[in-house]
């Protein structure tokens, strides 16, 4: 049976792909766009399709030695160059070095009279000339549907555009054709009917004043692709797609253990701490010491010479550094050595997907061995509860796939069930520490216990938890008067 199966796959060689060079896009497409074929990128106004197309050309020219031609129907070369300068793309320089050719095609209906038969050979000549002049391997047509506004013979335009796509294929150039999303169709004039290999849909939604950009691969012939929507970012480095799905169960696991930074905690966790690459949840009420545990963990990672990325959603970097100094923790030295990076941002600043994209981008750039998110409960304020849950699952899967140990704090309300996480991620968490206050004899004492820790023997005891000026201290029992009980 297996031989029959392999025989079947041998018949169909895998489709050759041209890497776009756009962060994340090549991962979600399994290597890039269909090589030597046109791809349709569509979406509403302002969805980022022109930017995606231009970055495809810029990356091609600068990273893959594939010069490109941009045929612009909507904006002049000057406008385009100005618009993408903020993304760090210097189109003029590429044009000067013959890595890029821009041809602005302008058709003004009011100055054109139509009489008798015609075709779009002029367009073919211009494109062909531009391709041949710089030896282009990539072509972008942005947005060819504008022609429908300039010329009246829609039937002829359709057949000519169809001929153009075939011609591009014969030329062997990898092309992106952009299209404006129509009513109930992917593009206004149904270009998706002519582009049979790959169709990508971009979307820009604003929900509760928070904007989110998403990308979906609608069609990719001869290639597996996720039907998921992937969030993407546009910032000063161009576009980046977050190639994260919740299907990542194939990551390798490590037997290596990493210290928690608190001697007593290591002891509770089989004497050695967390598994490397595992996900740890620390929950507790306000003021219970979650951030302190998180910071100890971060500091311990830096002490081992590892890099740690800390996302702080409640405190600024300065505030965090100052406050932790009070328990004898000097984070500043790690920041100075660039082993610790603190990224402080308000959770409501942007949507969940954007947070995920941000985290992804920073992780990819910094390559940390440990990531701390303090606290994840704040994500709920940036989206609905189910959104937050699925985002955290994706985040955890992503960190696991990179063998990064992740520690997340979670604020629980004192009256709520402590063992119930708000966002329902407990099932994908490997180790779960609970901090709580115990009241007895008119005194409040901190206590900590390990609710679960997969794959290792761990203490079931509730131990005392104290913040001192030289760090976190665990006492054998929450109340020393109870000594002797187990």
């Amino acid at each position: 049976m297996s031989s029959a199966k392999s025989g079947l796959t041998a018949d169909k060689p895998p489709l050759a792909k041209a890497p776009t060079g756009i962060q994340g896009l090549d991962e979600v497409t399994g290597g890039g766009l269909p090589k030597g074929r046109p791809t349709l990128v569509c979406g509403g106004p302002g969805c980022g399709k022109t930017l995606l197309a231009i970055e495809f050309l810029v990356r091609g020219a600068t990273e893959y030695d594939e010069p490109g031609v941009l045929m612009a129907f909507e904006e002049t070369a000057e406008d385009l160059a100005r618009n993408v300068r903020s993304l760090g793309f210097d189109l003029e320089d590429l044009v000067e070095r013959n890595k890029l050719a821009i041809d602005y095609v302008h058709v003004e209906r009011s100055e054109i009279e139509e009489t008798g038969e015609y075709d779009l050979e002029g367009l073919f000549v211009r494109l062909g000339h531009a391709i041949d002049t710089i030896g282009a391997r990539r072509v972008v047509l942005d947005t060819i549907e504008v022609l429908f506004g300039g010329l009246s013979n829609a039937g002829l335009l359709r057949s000519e555009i169809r001929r153009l796509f075939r011609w591009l294929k014969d030329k062997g150039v990898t092309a992106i054709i952009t299209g404006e999303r129509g009513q109930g169709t992917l593009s206004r004039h149904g270009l998706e009917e002519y582009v049979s290999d790959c169709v990508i849909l971009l979307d820009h939604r604003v929900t509760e004043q928070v904007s989110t950009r998403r990308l979906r691969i609608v069609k990719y012939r001869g290639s597996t692709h996720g039907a998921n929507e992937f969030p993407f970012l546009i910032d000063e480095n161009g576009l980046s797609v977050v190639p994260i799905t919740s299907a990542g169960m194939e990551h390798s696991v490590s037997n290596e253990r990493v210290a928690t930074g608190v001697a007593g905690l290591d002891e509770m966790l089989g004497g050695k701490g967390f598994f490397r690459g595992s996900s740890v949840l620390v929950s507790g009420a306000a003021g219970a010491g979650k951030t302190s545990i998180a910071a100890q963990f971060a500091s311990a990672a830096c002490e081992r010479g590892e890099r740690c990325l800390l996302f702080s959603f409640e405190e600024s970097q300065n505030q965090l550094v100052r406050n932790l100094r009070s328990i004898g923790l000097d984070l500043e030295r790690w920041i100075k050595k660039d082993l610790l990076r603190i990224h402080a941002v308000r959770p409501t600043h942007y949507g969940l997907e954007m947070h995920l994209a941000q985290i992804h981008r920073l992780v990819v750039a910094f390559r940390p061995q440990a990531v701390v998110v303090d606290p994840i409960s704040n994500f709920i304020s940036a989206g609905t509860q189910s959104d937050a849950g699925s985002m955290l699952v994706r985040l955890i899967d992503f960190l696991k796939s990179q063998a990064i140990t992740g520690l997340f704090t979670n604020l629980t309300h004192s009256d709520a069930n402590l063992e119930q996480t708000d966002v329902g991620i407990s099932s994908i968490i490997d180790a779960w520490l609970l901090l709580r206050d115990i009241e007895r004899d008119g005194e409040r004492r901190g206590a900590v216990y390990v609710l679960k820790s997969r794959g290792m023997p761990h203490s079931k005891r509730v131990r005392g938890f104290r913040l001192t000026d030289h760090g976190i201290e665990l006492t054998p029992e929450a109340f020393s008067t109870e000594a002797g009980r187990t």
Partner: protein
Amino acid sequence: MNDQAMNDQESQPNAADELWELRLYVAGQTAKSLAAFANLKTVCEEHLAGKYNIEVVDLLVNPQLARGDQIVAIPTLVRKLPEPMRKIIGDLSNTERVLVGLQLRPKKTSQA
């Protein structure tokens, strides 16, 4: 200009004494291109005799010239002079529309 053939009342005032500079863009000797040239010649002889100049640009020979006049469709006739620039696309088989396009005749549609 010693031409006195312009007795046509309908001609635009700016057409009176000027030299008409026309450029016909083609891509190879196709049937459409040949038809366009023949049709254009007829119209010019009839309405602009002695004061027109036709330049044929074959884009297969000079592809770089397509950009300057924003040529997309083939054939395209460009009236360079008199200004403003006008473009007529197609094989120019409909003489009426060619005349309207060249502004040698006002658009019918405006009046009933």
